[in-house]
């Protein structure tokens, strides 16, 4: 167990070091719905995400390692409407006692549109609100990298920003579909992200990037899964996370890193409680 934790820490440290080597990353790190994209422009965000979780139930250890490559692509159709596609490739290792299972490959592709319904600009500041809605397409392998169902989600995102700080908050609801006899529980999520610029003495955007410290919070409530219309008592529940991070923003790219730490772990029954997640990310604007 100690070895495993050391490996997790080394993995996190390595990602952090790699990112800091390029100089670090501003918009929320843990959600893509607030990504800024203008009319006829493209934004690409590439994230590497590591999650680890482990516990011991009745003397049987469980260790879960997940590596994800998540590519988010956004295009501004006009000044108010943007379309996004998120492509995840995952590698999941689950060890239960002496039994190990591995699944890797393309997971479910997510696509959504965002429509801005409110905008109020001032000198060096803005307030915007948008609605979004989309679908999780079951492109992954059922039972391995996907549960095989088509899921729908929607919500509202609010952004308030100035040259020194940004706030993004979103409410999101996901209605999960059913595949064969399995239906994952529906999910309600509340996310908030505060980014504060720390190198605000030099304001020349042409020669200096903007360094932000980031603190994000997330509350997720998930219904119980259903198997053959019967609720799985070892699923669903409530989890909350705090995510400190850094963002370094230039005119053409942004680098970012964050560590998502579970602060409330109240999943039902014997469901594996969430562990720490490390995120390293780059964004490019074309």
């Amino acid at each position, binding site marked *: 167990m100690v070895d495993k934790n050391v490996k997790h820490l080394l993995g996190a440290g390595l990602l952090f070091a790699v990112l800091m080597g390029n100089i670090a990353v501003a918009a929320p790190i843990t959600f893509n719905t607030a990504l*800024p994209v203008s009319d006829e422009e493209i934004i690409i965000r590439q994230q590497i995400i590591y999650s680890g979780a482990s516990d011991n139930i009745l003397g049987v250890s469980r260790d879960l390692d997940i590596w994800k490559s998540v590519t988010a692509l956004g295009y501004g159709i006009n*000044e108010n409407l943007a379309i996004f596609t998120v492509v995840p490739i995952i590698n999941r290792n689950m060890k239960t006692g002496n039994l190990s299972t591995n699944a890797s490959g393309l997971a479910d592709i997510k696509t959504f549109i965002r429509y801005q319904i409110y905008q109020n600009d001032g000198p*060096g500041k803005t307030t915007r609100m948008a609605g979004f809605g989309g679908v999780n397409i079951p492109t992954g392998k059922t039972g391995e990298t996907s549960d095989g169902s088509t899921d729908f989600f929607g919500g509202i995102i609010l952004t308030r920003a100035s*040259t020194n700080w940004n706030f993004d908050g979103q409410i999101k609801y996901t209605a999960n579909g059913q595949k064969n006899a399995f239906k994952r529980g529906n999910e309600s999520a509340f996310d908030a992200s505060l980014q504060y610029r720390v190198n605000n003495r030099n*304001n020349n*955007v042409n020669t200096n990037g903007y360094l932000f410290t980031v603190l994000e919070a997330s509350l997720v409530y998930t219904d119980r899964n259903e198997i053959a219309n019967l609720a799985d008592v070892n699923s669903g529940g409530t989890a909350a996370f705090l995510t400190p991070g850094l963002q370094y923003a230039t*005119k053409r790219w*942004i680098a970012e890193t964050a560590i998502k730490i579970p602060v409330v772990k109240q999943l039902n029954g014997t469901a594996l409680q969430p562990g720490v997640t490390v995120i390293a990310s780059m964004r490019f604007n074309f």
Partner: protein
Amino acid sequence: MRKILLISAGIILLASNALAKDGQDQVQYDLRVDGMTCPFCAATSEKALKKIDGVSKVSTNLETATISVCTDGKTDMADEKLTKLFKKKGFTYVSKTKQETCSVSDEKKK
């Protein structure tokens, strides 16, 4: 030695003259644009402005919400055009002032 000094001085004088003419041939518009808060916003706005024929240099100051644009003096920089351009990019054009010389140092990228 004297030849080298004379040639060097001549080159410096020619270059200075060319630079001075470069600024004199151009006019500068300082555009007040609201809603820009980040380096990405500056890049998006500058990219759109650089697509206008006659625009040579663009530079953004996020703190004063100002984009300085150098043009050849014949470029159409009407308020209606700028309002439409910045609305498409997600920002709000407010006003502009004009100067008879260009002091922007950022070169237009080809």
